[in-house]
């Protein structure tokens, strides 16, 4: 609260005091010809006003300063009333009450939406769970009736399965709860499981797989990482350029472990690279060739962020793409290893 603004706010009372002082001075001068008495009285009136205003200013400044400062510091601004002390003056009390009321109604509103999104998420989880039974049944039927039609349908069923899984992880990535489970595993186990799961897709694309340095322990959620690796493999197949070669490379870093998945695909244009992790970004490759949803890498990044893993990309058009996942090794995980 600026002094000038404060005084401007109290302009009427200031004017009144000044007028009262002038009038008192004039009164004594004209009536009793007592210049000193008039001046004395005027000075007292003005002094009283100045003292009153200063006291009020100090009191209000304390409160409003704490309001603006807390507002700056707060991450969730609607919680302001929570950190304020109730002021001693009436105006402040009114404001304080209003803030408390609005905070409460905001909290109610948030709870309502949280509940709704929780319900929606539960519905998605159940739906994904239910849809898997018909998908499994369809796969078995196709497997038992081999033929041209079946193998064509099998590919489509695989795609449906992948989209369903993406929906599940999308809903998980949006939720605020921590529903992952960090466990100890090795890079080799993670890569082998993803390769096995996507064997048909990769074999169909005539992929040659090389792996190096995967004998390292990491801490992560196994299912989530499996999904992330699956997305990367699917991208490698989708954007391949001739015979597909995929290389997995693990290396020890100072504060963790890095897993790089690189391919010899069409690569990503330089101007698109900074945006590949953005939601809905499809870029030049997405427009030109294979259909792209702009969700795969976005989800990978989001899930990595939630688990505290690093994810970075480097690519050269015509040469290929390399994606690196960094598994940090904190002091806590180090002590866990010792146990």
């Amino acid at each position, binding site marked *: 609260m600026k002094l000038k603004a404060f005084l401007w706010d109290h302009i009427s009372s200031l004017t009144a005091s000044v007028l009262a002082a002038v009038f008192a001075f004039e009164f004594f001068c004209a009536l009793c010809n007592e210049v000193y008495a008039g001046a004395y009285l005027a000075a007292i009136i003005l002094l009283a006003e100045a003292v009153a205003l200063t006291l009020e200013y100090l009191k209000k400044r304390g409160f409003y300063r704490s309001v603006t400062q807390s507002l700056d510091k707060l991450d969730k601004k609607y919680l302001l009333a929570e950190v304020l002390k109730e002021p001693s003056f009436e105006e402040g009390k009114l404001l304080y009450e209003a803030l408390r009321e609005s905070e409460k109604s905001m909290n109610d509103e948030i709870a309502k939406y949280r509940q709704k999104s929780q319900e929606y998420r539960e519905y998605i989880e159940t739906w994904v769970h239910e849809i898997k*039974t018909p998908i*499994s049944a369809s796969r078995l039927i196709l497997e*038992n009736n081999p033929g041209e039609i079946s193998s064509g349908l099998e590919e489509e069923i695989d795609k449906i399965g992948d989209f369903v899984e993406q929906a599940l992880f999308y809903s998980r990535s949006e939720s605020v709860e921590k529903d*992952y489970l960090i466990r100890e595993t090795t890079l080799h186990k993670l890569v082998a499981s993803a390769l*096995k*799961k996507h*064997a048909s897709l990769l074999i169909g694309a005539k992929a*040659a797989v090389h792996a190096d340095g995967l004998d390292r322990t990491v801490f992560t*959620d196994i*299912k989530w990482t499996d999904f992330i690796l699956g997305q990367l493999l699917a991208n490698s197949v989708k954007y391949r350029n001739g015979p597909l070669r995929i290389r997995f490379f693990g290396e020890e870093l100072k504060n963790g472990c890095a897993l790089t998945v690189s391919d010899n695909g069409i690569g990503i244009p330089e101007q698109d690279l900074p945006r590949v992790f953005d939601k809905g970004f499809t870029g030049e490759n997405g427009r030109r060739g294979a259909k792209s949803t702009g969700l795969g890498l976005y989800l990978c990044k989001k899930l990595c962020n939630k688990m505290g893993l690093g994810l970075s990309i480097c690519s050269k058009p015509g040469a290929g793409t390399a994606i690196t996942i960094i598994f940090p090794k904190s002091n806590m995980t180090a002590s866990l290893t010792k146990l």
Partner: protein
Amino acid sequence: MAVIFLVEDDQKIRTELTKLLKKYGYECDSSDDFANIVEIILKRKPQLVLLDLNLPVCDGFCICRELRRRSHIPIIVVTSRDSETDELVSMDLGADDFITKPYNTQILLAHITAVLKRTNPQKVPGTVNYRGLEVDFAKSSANGPEGSTELTKNELKILGLFFSARGRIVTRDEIMNTLWQSDEFVDDNTLTVNINRLRRKLESIGVRDYLVTKRGQGYRI
């Protein structure tokens, strides 16, 4: 022949899974009476139980617990609930393995063989004879009319797949998938090398024209 009991409430999956597992040389058994399923399983004495978690009457966890309390039958839990807790609870209750739906059939078969091998080693055939070739899976060797030869892990896997296919045409993709499921991520060229070497080995022990190429389709024995 190993008997697998399917605890699964979806009729379609049950029939199709039975067909599929028969193709790979397993007998299947199942029942609709979910209220007394534990009794039925114990009476039929299967070598393995494939257990779905989501069931009418009582859920898979409770069946798993009850089965484990009363017998050592190997149990593979199959579920579409893709969560870590389900897996941990199943393992805690004594399940031997855990697979999530929708599974790749090769993955399912690999898990079944692995669990059977671990739990009843004597049930897994030591030697198999087919059209003049005898393969000893325990010693990883092949015997023919003109002698015997050592087989590599990959060659053993490939012959195992051909034996379970029993005269059916096996595609190259299927062979590769089987190898991939046992952690051998071979590519197309390596497979050709493997097949050619296997053919030469078989010829050296007097087994000729065993792996027949079906152009554009795959191989057959």
